Each structure stands twice: as C-alpha cells, then as structure tokens.
C-alpha cells in the first residue's frame, strides 16, 4: 500500500538517507508545506520591512508622518495579516494533527511483527519474535545493535530503558520516540524500501551518547527468512 494522507510534492527532504517508511513521505511533505507557507510570510514581511527602511530614510526638512494606528483605515493593515496568520495556522494545524495521529496515535491493530526494544547506556537490544511470529516464546531472536525486519511488514515496537532516558530514532523512517525507564512506549512503522539504516539515540544519555548507534536492516522476504533460519536459537 502506498496511500498517503495528502498529495506529495517531494520524495525525500533528507540528503543522507532514504524515505523508507510509509509515513516518511507524509512527514516530509508536511514539512515542505509548512516551509512554503512560513517562508512566504518570512520573505513578504522581511521584504516589506527592508522596503520601508530604505523608502523612509530621513530626508532633510521632511517630517515623519503622525499615525497613532487606531484609525480603522490604518489598523486594517494589521488586522488583515492577523486574520491571515490565523487562517494559515489552521491549515498547518489540520495537516500536522493528521500526520501526528497517523504516526503516533493510530497504532496498527494487527502488526505483522512485534519487536521489543530495550535501551541502556549505550546500546540497543532487540527481541525479534522468531519463526512463530509470537513474542515471549522460546524461538525469540535477541540481538544487540542490529534490528532485522522484513520489507513491507508493518512492525510495532514496544520500548523501554534500563537506566536513563534514550530516544529511539530512525531518520530514514522519520520515526522518533523517547524510551523511559519504568514505562513502555510504543511505536510502529511500515517499511517500503530494503536497505540498512541508522538507529540513533537522540536523547542525551551520558558520556557514550555520541556513540550510541545501531542499525536497522530491512530485508527482502528471502533474505529475512534466511536470517531467521540462521539465527534461531537451536
């Protein structure tokens, strides 16, 4: 499935990595839409500002205008942009909340795979469900700093931390969620591109924060089956 929340104009805003989850494009294009709106405002306001500064430089013998700003004829130059800002805020709000709800609230009810993610200073441990697809059974595959998922799978993850706060971030998926000791935080993604991507800890976690990385490997179905076969506990 490649359905999107709204029409897209760009493929990826990240120079360094792919747009490898189904919702990455939604987030990128939300950012692009926000960028178009706010940059238009920024350049319009800055342009007008600079124009006024140049146009109304002091000239000898010429007095400035006396405008108190309360005359409705003058005040509308503030009121109209004020209302326009409000309107654009609503547009941004609607799109942002749609994306947010899709990514963070509407968890998949029947994911193809559920992984457990445990962060500790300064490594990631992943528990894959193994051949039976069920977590918490004997054939679970535990790995450190490498997470394997199958291309096209909808993956749900439940994460926690053993010590301090960490953040489970996969830039290629545009996914990020803090993990907290004593709690379980969940997230999901659906992969749409095979490859190996960075997992980065994005919450400061002490002296090793700068080396706390892992890799996520999105395998084709054949590769994934081979990996499971090779790594299943005997």
């Amino acid at each position: 499935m490649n359905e999107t929340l709204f029409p897209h104009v760009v493929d990826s805003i990240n120079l360094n990595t792919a747009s490898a989850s189904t919702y990455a494009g939604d987030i990128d294009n939300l950012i692009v839409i926000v960028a178009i709106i706010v940059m238009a405002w920024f350049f319009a306001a800055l342009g007008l500002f600079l124009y006024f500064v140049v146009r109304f430089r002091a000239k000898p013998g010429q007095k400035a205008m006396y405008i108190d700003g309360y005359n409705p004829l003058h005040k509308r130059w503030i009121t109209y942009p004020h209302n326009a800002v409000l309107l654009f805020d609503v547009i941004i709000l609607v799109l942002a909340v749609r994306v947010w709800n899709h990514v963070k609230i509407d968890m998949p009810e029947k994911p193809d795979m559920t992984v457990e993610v445990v962060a500790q200073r300064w490594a990631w441990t992943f528990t894959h469900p193994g051949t039976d697809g069920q977590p918490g059974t004997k054939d679970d595959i535990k790995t450190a700093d490498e997470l394997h998922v199958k291309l096209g799978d909808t993956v749900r993850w439940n994460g926690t931390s053993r010590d301090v706060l960490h953040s489970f971030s996969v830039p290629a998926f545009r996914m990020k969620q803090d993990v907290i000791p004593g709690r379980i935080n969940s997230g999901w993604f659906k992969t749409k591109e095979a490859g190996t991507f960075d997992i980065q800890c994005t919450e400061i976690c002490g002296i090793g924060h700068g080396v706390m990385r892992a890799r996520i490997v999105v395998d084709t179905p054949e590769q994934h089956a081979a990996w499971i076969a090779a790594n299943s506990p005997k």
Partner: protein
Amino acid sequence: MSSTATAHHDHDHGHDGHGHHEEQNFFLKYFWSTDHKIIAQQYMWTGIAMALIGGFLAYAFRMQLAFPGKFIPGYGYMSSLEYNAAVTNHGTIMIFWFAMPVLIAAFGNLLIPLMIGCDDMVFPRINRLSYQVFLLSSIILIASFFVEGGAFNGAWTAYPPLSANGEYNMAGMGSTMWVVAVALEFVAFLLGGINFIVTTMSSRAPGMRMWDVPIVVWMIVVASILFMASVGPLIAGAVMLVFDQNFGTFFFNPQRGGDPVLWQHLFWFFGHPEVYVVLLPAMGMSGEIIATFSRKKLFAYKTLLYTVFATGIISFFVWAHHQFIAGIDPRMANVFTVTTLIISVPIAEMCFLYIATLYGGAIRLTVPMLWGLAFVAEFLLGGVTGIFLGASGADIYFHDTYFVVAHFHYTFIPIAIIGFFMGFTYWFPKMYGKMLDETIGKIHFWITILGFNMIFIPLFFTGMWGDHRRIYNYGHFPELVKNEIMQDLRIMATVGLLIMLSAQVLFVINLIKTAMSKQENPGPNPYKANTLEWAAPSPPGHGNFAEMPTVYRGPYEYSHPDREDDYWPQHLPPDDASSKKADGEKADEKADDKKH
C-alpha cells in the same frame, strides 16, 4: 509610594554613616550600593563576563565539531564528557547568566526608575540583595567546573535520571552545584522582579498613567510577572532533584516509584514562559529604538500592549510542545499543537506593528537603530521556523536535531546578543555621558550579523539532513558522514562563530577609544527622544533627576503636527514656548483624546 522609596534610601545611607551627598568610598559605591543604576551596572558587567565564558565554551565545542578529535587552540583536546559539559554550561550560562541578568535585571534596573520618573526602586536593599545572591550563584556555577568529575554534563534541561544520579552523569558534585546555582539565581531574579513590578505600579511620576508608560517598561513588568508565576514549580523541582542526587529520595527515580517525566513538566512549565521572559525586554527596547530613530509614534501602542498580555497568558499553555516525543500521552500533543500555533498570532502581530511603525518615518540608521532593526529581521526567521516545531507531525522528525538548535538561536541571539548591543549602544550616553564611535560601531554590527547568520543558516540544513544534538563526533553515525557537504556545513558554522567572536574585539576597541576620548558630554538628550530618562542628566546622579518630572503626554509623540520640533518630551509642560499654538494645553488634551 515614591516618598517611601526616598525614605528607604536616605535611611540606608544614614546607616552607612554617609550623608546623602557625600562621596562614598569605592567599595561602598560599587559593591554595596542600593542605587538602581549601580546595580544595573553590576548585573550588566557580570553578565558580560559570564557571556565570555559561554562564548568560549561555544568556541571549544564548535571547534571539536568542525575538526573532531583535533587539538583546540586555547582549550586542548576535548573528551566526550567535556563536550557534554561544554554544551550544557553554554546553554545554562547564556540563558540564565547572560540573557536574564542583562536583559531583565540590568536594563530593568537601569530603565524602570529613569523611564517612569522616580529616584530609585521601591525596595533598594532588596535590590542590592538580589545582585548579591546572583553573584553568589555565578561563583557556585563557575566553581562547579573545578570539582571532582567536572561541571554538570546532562544538558541545560537536566532531565533525570541522568541528572539525578552521579553514577550516570559521572559528575555528582558538579550536578548538585549546577542545580543549586540555578535555584539561587532564580531567587535573585524573584527579588529583582518584585521591585520592577511594585516600582512601576506605585512610583510613576505625577501625571503618568498606565497608557503613558514606555513599552519597554511594560514589557519588563510583564516579563517579571511571568517569571514570578512560572518559576515556583521549577524551584520545587530543583529541591527534589537535589534530594534525589544526595539524600536517596526518588522523586524522579522510576525504579522506586518516581517519574522522570515529572521533571520535564516542571522544567518546561517554567522553561517556556522563560522564553518570553527574555524576549519581551528585548522586544520592548527594539520598540523604543525604532520609535526614536524613525521619529514615529509607535503604531497602535494599546494593541501592542494587548499582544504582550496575550503572549504572556498563552505562554503558560504551550510547555508540552517540548515533550511531543518524550512519552506523554500522544493525544495531549494535539492540545499543545493548537496552543503553540495560537501563540504565533500575537508574536507575529508584534512584528507587524513594528514594521507598521516604520511606515512614513524619517529613519536614521544609527548604530542602536541598526541593532534594533536587526532584532526584528532576525527574530522573524526564528519565529517562523518555530512553526515547524510547533506542528506536532513535523516535530517527530525535527525534534532534537540541529534544526531546533538553529531555530532557538535565531530567537535567543536576537534577544540576548542583539538585544544587549541595542540597549547598550542606545543608553550608553545616558549611562556614561559619552557617545560611542559610530563607524566602529557599524563595522562591529555588520561583522557580528554576518558571523551570526553564517553559523546558524548551515545548521538548519544539517538538522534537516539528520544531525542530532549533543553529539561530540558525527563520525560514529554512518548516515551522517556519507556526504561531505555535512562536514563542510559544520565547518562553515564554526568559521561563522570565529568571525562573530573576533568581531567583538571591535566592540572592546570602541569602548576603550570612547573611554579615552575627551569628548564633551552630549547633554541629557542626544537623540531628541521623548521618554523621561532623557530628562535626567547624563549620567544621572544619585536620585536621578535634578527636578522630579511631571508627565503631560504619552511617550511616543514624535513628529506631532501641532509642533515644530519632531519630538515632544513627556515632561515638557504643554505651554512650552516651542509649541506652535498658543493654546498648547488644549492641543495636548486633544492629542490625548485622540489617543484614547
């Protein structure tokens, strides 16, 4: 109440064994003073000294980022833990020991009594205590660099469990000293804030109504109220954190039933209003300067004031936008997205009102005006890039990246650095009775602005392309070293910082040149401005005004059609001879009617 202030004052000096007009010895005058102007100077120069430390830390970690693992001239080699300590204390110092003391405490102290026309703060000895507590907090913070384990390294937000446990942050003593210093510093600003609010409410010159108070004074008062209302939870949190660190409690320790996210709420409930606490004074100074040098009345003064109130109120309902991905209930994020986008409206409106003020002006691009205008221009970019982060869906990706770093530096550098320079250059003649050199000032301005933009425009891009914060060496992340342009941009930012820092030499040269020069005193009102501080001598003596002023009109009556001069000081009686009309009093009343 004004007389009460005077009484306090006289009593105070009587106690020291000095008559009101006798020369005090150096120590009493500069270190034990209750004079608001001296306390302002104390805050300002302590703040500048702290900014030099903060700037040096920025230099050290930007060098490490541009040339990872290489020797840093003037610093040495930087370890990962030192890097974390450097970014932590850079943030802490620049916000709490530079922006706050300079913008609120120094300019608040300097400007409020002068601009509302009274002789001193209402509680001068509380004011003196405020600076002394602040100085103590600065000493504790600096001392924390030299204890075992070094300075605190858990980021300026100090999220537990990292900050709560010396085993995790490896700087147990340093982190306790950090929390204590921050809490003491808040006590200092609470003492100062009380003075600002009470003085403005009760000691205004006769005739000065609330609508006649200069906008910068209003903004400092609103900022003080925001600070006062928001800081309680954080001081409570700081006490709990110190207990967690040292006495085995577990307010924030989940293994024993505590909750680390609680701290984030306490911190950001203070932390977001804090942004507006430092923004408002800078915004206000910019307004004063723009009105003076465009010879224009501020566009819709009352509307501006309402936007300040609106910003202040809404700022209490946006804090969790710092915590979108921190593990709060995701449905709450939607509420905070709404409030965050709403706060863009009053802030945008402030900028519109300033731009509208420029319309039809007679603009003179003096050095203070350049800083005042640069504040608006640069803050615009900081403001609009905040929308990306307030929009929850986009924040999932941008959270904790360099995009955030670039965004808040585009707000904090206009506020703190540009704000300091605009206030300092504008009121320099008032403080010291001399004029700074305009040519050096302009070169200093342009190089600083160039350096500033060269640092942070590249960081918007590295952030968008995945650089996340507080990493001492990106070499460990395969995606972040794939493209050489990433490192080029990091180097460009560092070069920008070097340019910005070295430009400050010009500022020092300007100060020395001005101090050495034998120029004549420019007189009380070199800019032909309206507000009351320009009625006092430069520099104002003890008690500020030779003759206590009475106020007859609002602060921005520039280029009034009934007057030949393009300014009309607040304290000039309406029958002043230079007024064109004989019945000046009536004209004044008419002007007032129009205004209300």
